[in-house]
C-alpha cells in the first residue's frame, strides 16, 4: 500500500505576530513610566580569545635517506602557522618531506589567544647505498616550485582557461626532467556525496593527466589517485576554501 497524507501545518503565525506587536507596544509604554533609567552598563571587555592548540605528526616517523615522510598538522584558534625550516603553512594540512638527516619539525600556531607549539621527529636511518646515477636529486620542494597545482570550477573537471598556462609550464618542466615519475592527485570540496566526489576527483586527476600528456609528457610517468573529499587543504565552510580544495596536485611518485 502506498498512501499519502498531507499534514497542514498550524497557521497561527499571523496571530502570533499580532500578539507580539501588541505585547511589544505594552512593554514600550510600560517602559515610559519608569522613574529612573539605569545608566548603561560599562562596555563588556572583549571576550578572551581562546589559546590556540597545535598538533603535528610524521608518518612514518623513521625513514631511510632518500625516502619521504608525510607531515600532517592541525591547529585550533590559530590565525597563522609556521613549521620551522619550512616556513609559513596553512593552519592545517599535510606535506611531504624528505630530510637527509634526522629532523625535528616544530609547528608554531599563533592566534589571538597566544601561541602553541608541537613537534614531530623524523628519524633518518643510516644512508642507503649511494644513489644510482639515473636517480633524480630533485627535492619535493624544488618540484613543487616548478610544478604547480591546477584548480577547478564547482562540480567540474574541465581545465579552466586560466589553468592552461599552468599545465603547459608543468609539462615543460616534466619534459625537461624525463626521469621524474609523478602522482596526480584529484581533490574535491566538502559538499556532496563521498562516493560521487571520489569519482569526480578521479576525473579531475585524469583531466590534469591528459592535459600533461597532450603537452608531450608520457602517460607511463603519470599515476592518478583520487582523494575525493577525504583530504582537504582548507577546512572552512566557504567558497574561498572550497576553491582551494577543488584541485589536482602533483607529487613525486616514489
Amino acid at each position: 500500500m502506498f498512501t499519502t497524507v498531507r499534514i497542514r501545518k498550524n497557521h497561527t503565525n499571523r496571530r502570533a505576530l499580532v500578539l507580539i506587536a501588541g505585547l511589544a507596544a505594552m512593554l514600550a509604554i510600560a517602559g515610559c513610566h519608569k522613574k529612573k533609567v539605569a545608566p548603561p552598563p560599562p562596555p563588556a571587555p572583549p571576550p578572551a580569545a581562546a589559546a590556540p592548540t597545535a598538533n603535528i605528526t610524521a608518518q612514518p616517523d623513521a625513514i631511510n635517506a632518500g625516502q619521504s615522510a608525510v607531515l600532517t598538522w592541525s591547529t585550533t584558534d590559530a590565525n597563522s602557522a609556521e613549521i620551522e625550516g619550512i616556513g609559513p603553512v596553512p593552519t592545517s594540512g599535510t606535506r611531504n618531506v624528505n630530510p637527509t638527516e634526522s629532523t625535528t619539525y616544530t609547528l608554531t600556531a599563533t592566534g589571538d589567544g597566544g601561541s602553541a607549539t608541537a613537534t614531530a621527529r623524523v628519524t633518518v636511518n643510516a644512508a642507503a647505498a649511494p644513489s644510482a646515477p639515473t636517480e633524480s636529486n630533485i627535492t619535493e620542494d624544488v618540484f613543487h616550485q616548478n610544478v604547480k597545482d591546477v584548480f577547478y570550477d564547482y562540480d567540474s573537471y574541465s581545465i579552466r582557461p586560466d589553468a592552461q598556462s599552468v599545465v603547459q609550464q608543468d609539462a615543460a618542466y616534466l619534459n625537461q626532467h624525463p626521469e621524474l615519475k609523478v602522482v596526480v592527485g584529484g581533490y574535491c570540496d566538502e559538499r556532496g556525496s563521498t562516493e560521487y566526489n571520489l569519482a569526480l576527483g578521479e576525473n579531475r586527476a585524469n583531466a590534469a593527466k591528459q592535459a600533461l600528456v597532450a603537452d608531450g609528457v608520457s602517460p607511463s610517468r603519470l599515476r592518478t589517485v583520487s582523494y575525493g573529499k577525504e583530504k582537504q587543504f582548507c577546512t572552512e565552510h566557504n567558497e574561498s576554501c572550497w576553491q582551494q580544495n577543488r584541485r589536482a596536485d602533483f607529487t613525486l611518485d616514489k
Partner: protein
Amino acid sequence: MNGKKLLPIFVAILVAVFVAPALHAQDWVRTGTNLGVQRIRIASARFKPLNNNAQTLSFQSIFDQVLYNDLKNAGIFDVVSPSMIPPETPGTPKEIHLDQWAAAPSNAAMVAFGNIAVDGGHVTVQGYLFDAKNPQTPQILGKQYSDDAGIENTRWIAHRFADEIIERVGGGINGICETHIYYVSNHSGNKEIWVMDYDGYNAHQITHLGTISLSPRVSPDNTRVAFSSLENHKGWVIRMWSLTLNRPVRFASPGGTSISPAWSSDGTKIAFSSSRTGDNEIYTTGPDGGDLHRITAFRGPDSSPTWNPKTNSQIAWVSGRTGLPQIYTMNADGSNVLRLTDGGYATSPSWSPNGQFLTFAWNRKYGPGAPGGQDIYIMDVASRHWVQLTHEQGANDSPSWAPDNRHIVFQRDNQIWSMLADGTDQQQLTHQGSNTMPNWSWK
C-alpha cells in the same frame, strides 16, 4: 503597570518570538508503506524475575527495556506506555488477568509477558504473546530462550523474542531486531569499517588497515563485507573482508580508482565504479572480482550502483554525464538507461528490498551560492513520484534500506540515524567521533 506584572508578559513575548518561526515552515507530505494502517496496540509487561539473584534483577530490567524499545522501533505497534499497564507482573499464562490488560487505560490488543532467571551461569527467558481480545484461546506465541548469562546475550534474547512477535503480528515480514548496521568510523584514528546492532548498541571495529576505508556493503549471507580502501601505490581498490575468518580474502580489483561496491541479492555478483579506462564507469564482477563486465560508457563520473534486490536485473546508480549528479536506472547489462531525478544534486541510491522504491540523498537547490539542504528522499521507481523524508536538519546522505522495507538508516552530518521509511521516528544511533556511510545488513 509594575515590573512584577510585566515579567510574565515578557516571557510570553520571548516564547512567541522563538516559536513563531517554526510555524512558517512549509507543508510537509508524509508517505510510506504503512500509513492508513491501524497500528496494533501492544503492551509489554514487566517480566517476572524467578529468583532474587542480583544478576536476574539486573538482566530483567535490561530485557524489559530492550523488548519495549524493539516493539516501539518496529513501526507497526502502538506500544502502551509503562504508566498505563495494569499493576501485575504475570510470569506465566496462569498469572495474567487479560481483562485488565484489555480494559482502559491500557486498552491493549496484545500483551507480551513472561519470566526471566539467571541460574547456573545461564540466563533463561520464557516469553508469551497473548491476544487480549480473545480470552478463550489467547496464546499466539510461547517461547523459551536460554544462553550463557551476559548482558549482550540478554539483549539478544529480547531481540529474538521481539522479532518473533513482529513476524507473527506484522504480516509475516521479519523484524529487524537481529540485524546489524555496517558503517565507517574514525573512532580509532583512521576511517575503518565497523559494525553495530540495529539499535546502535554493541559497536565494534572490523578492519584495522590504518588507511581510509569506505562504503561497506555486507554480503546477502552476512559472511563478507565488500568495501573500498586507499592503498599505497595502487589507489582505491575494492577489498573483501571475511567476517567468519576475520581477515581480508581475495578480490581481484581492477586498476584505477575502484569504489562503491554493491552486492546483488543472490550473492553472485558485485557492481562497482572503476576508472580503469580513465573515466569512472560501472562494472559488474563475480564475488571474487572475476568475470569483469563494463556496463556503462559515457563521459563523466559514474558511481554508487545499487541492484534491484527483487529481480537483480536492474541497477540504479549516480551519473554526472549531464552535469550535476543524477539518479539513473538501467538493466544489469547496461541497456535501457533511464534518468529518474529532474535536477539538483542526487546521489547515494539504495533500492528497497521489495524492489518498489529507491531512497537517495538529494539537494534540489544545489548550486554555487544556493546553499540548499541535502535531504533523504524516497522515489517510487515505476511512477517516479518522490517524497522528502528529512527536513531542515543537517546534511543527510548514504541512506540504506532495512530488510523489512519499513526502516532506513542514513548519515546526518557525521552521525548515523535511523527512521521509518515515512520519515518519522528519527533516532540518532551513534554519538562519538565521525560515523558515516551506514549499510543495513540483510536478514
